[in-house]
């Protein structure tokens, strides 16, 4: 299993409420790197992650992981959604949540094994939350909650980690802990794909970048991609014809892709 790419996205289009949110996105991502997906608000970054994880329907195109369909390699991919996607008042402790990382489809009716529990404990150690393992999750700070999510993903023992805005609302110390952890993971050969909002951290810590604004602006090694021209195109906020057409599509209820049209 030695494909060059971890993730491949081909001709991907996604519409939400008839408005195209991602338009003909096309790129391949390398393995064993820390990859950032960057763009302004509403540029489709979260949607892109969800499309890769098979959580939303695609209007066109496909995604592949290790050159295979997602369903064939699911155990090798761990998804870390946004922190706000959960009600933290849920009656569960840190340990309860991290153990959920060991739940497997089709094995939900079985008990967790001793190995499962051990792996969960190790994951909690890696994110430095061992002393909090019995604490109710509502009593954690934002940074601690983020680390719980990360531990849950680590407990899965995956090779690719897909994370949606893991640094939002997180204190500086936690940010450093997480970053250190990600670098350690990279050194073990894992691939980390992160949707991120802050360009400063990006240029320091990320190896590879995808610049997104509904359409793909650029992708490649960070140094090559972070040019003024690219940033202008990503964040410039120009109301171009694409946006105008988005509105026409919505108004006229147009199908975003023609029926029976096949892309080569």
């Amino acid at each position, binding site marked *: 299993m030695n494909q060059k790419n971890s993730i491949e996205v081909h001709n991907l289009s996604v519409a939400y409420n008839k408005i195209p949110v991602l338009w003909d996105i096309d790129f391949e991502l390398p393995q064993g790197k820390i990859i950032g997906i960057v763009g302004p608000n509403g540029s489709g970054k979260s949607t892109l992650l969800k499309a890769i994880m098979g*959580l939303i329907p695609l209007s066109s195109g496909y995604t592949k992981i290790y050159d295979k369909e997602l369903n064939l390699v699911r155990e090798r991919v761990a998804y870390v959604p946004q922190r706000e996607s*959960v009600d933290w008042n849920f009656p*569960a402790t840190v340990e309860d949540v991290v153990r959920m990382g060991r739940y497997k489809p089709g094995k*939900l009716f079985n008990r967790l094994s001793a190995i499962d529990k051990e792996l969960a404990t190790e994951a909690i150690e890696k994110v430095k939350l061992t002393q909090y393992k019995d604490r109710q999750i509502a009593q954690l700070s934002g940074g601690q909650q983020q680390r719980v999510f990360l531990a849950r993903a680590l407990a899965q023992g995956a090779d690719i980690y897909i994370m949606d805005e893991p640094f939002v609302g997180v204190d500086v110390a936690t940010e450093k802990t997480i970053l250190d952890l990600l670098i350690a993971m990279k050194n073990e050969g894992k691939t980390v794909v992160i949707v991120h909002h802050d360009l400063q951290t990006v240029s320091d810590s990320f190896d590879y970048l995808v610049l997104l604004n509904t359409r793909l602006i650029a992708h490649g090694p960070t140094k090559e991609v972070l040019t003024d021209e690219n940033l202008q195109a990503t964040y410039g906020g120009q109301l171009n014809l694409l946006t105008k057409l988005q509105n026409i599509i919505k108004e006229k209820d147009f199908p975003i892709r023609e029926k029976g049209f096949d892309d080569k």
Partner: protein
Amino acid sequence: MGMNDILTLITALLIAWSCSLLGCFLVLRKVVMVGDAISHSVLPGIVIAYLISTKFDSIFILIGAAVFGVFTTFIIDFFHKKLKLQEDASIGITFTWLFALGVILIALFTDGNADLDQDCVLFGELGTSFLDKIIYEGRVYGTRSMLMILPVFIIVILFVIFGFKGLQIMSFHEEYAKSKGINISFWHYTFMSLVSITTVMSFESVGAILVVGLLVIPPATAYLLVTKLPSMLFVSCIVSSIACFLGYYLSFKLDVSLSSMIIVTAGIMFVIALIIKKISSNLQVKSNIK
């Protein structure tokens, strides 16, 4: 305490436990109102099955009405997703219409038959359920109500125990569960089917309005007090048990409707839990400030 009291209480407890267990997940998934809708919508299913089979013990009642219950979630989805009606209106229109349909069917076809009238529909007749005993070779094996609820309770408790992890992850983080390849649809529709069946079985005993009370109040009370899910399930059952015993006693003492009194008692316990919670968090804030 006579035999009749015990029989009534056992029936009440079985219903209460089934509802309090399932209700915990309704509360955590924030779909209580859908549960409320289902409990109203099963009525036409019950009436139709009753008209067809003319007796209550028929298994068709159970199946037909449960189908109606799951059907309700489809109808709500249809209004919301296909016809683009906002979610709260989709729920409200669906269950009021189905409930109205049930009441109309009763009024048109049952002619004031004692077994199924409007009062019974709303309030149930737990208080007189002991009249319908099952007697075999001289020994009393329970009432008809009890024997209807018992298998449902067993299914519910087995599902909650064995399906715990699935219910837990689906209630906590549905998106994450889906990303792992867990079949959310299966869990969702199985769960809603159980809610429908439990509602149907409880209907005759405690009535439409009060089924919802048992689905919401004990779990909400437990939610306020505990920090782990197994505890929530357990405390929810404790609360509803106390509600049954105390409610039974008080309804007898004050000579008022039994099912209503059970709910009121549960409500009292909720208020107590609320007060305890508020006091303890005030104390905590004060000690944090010190």
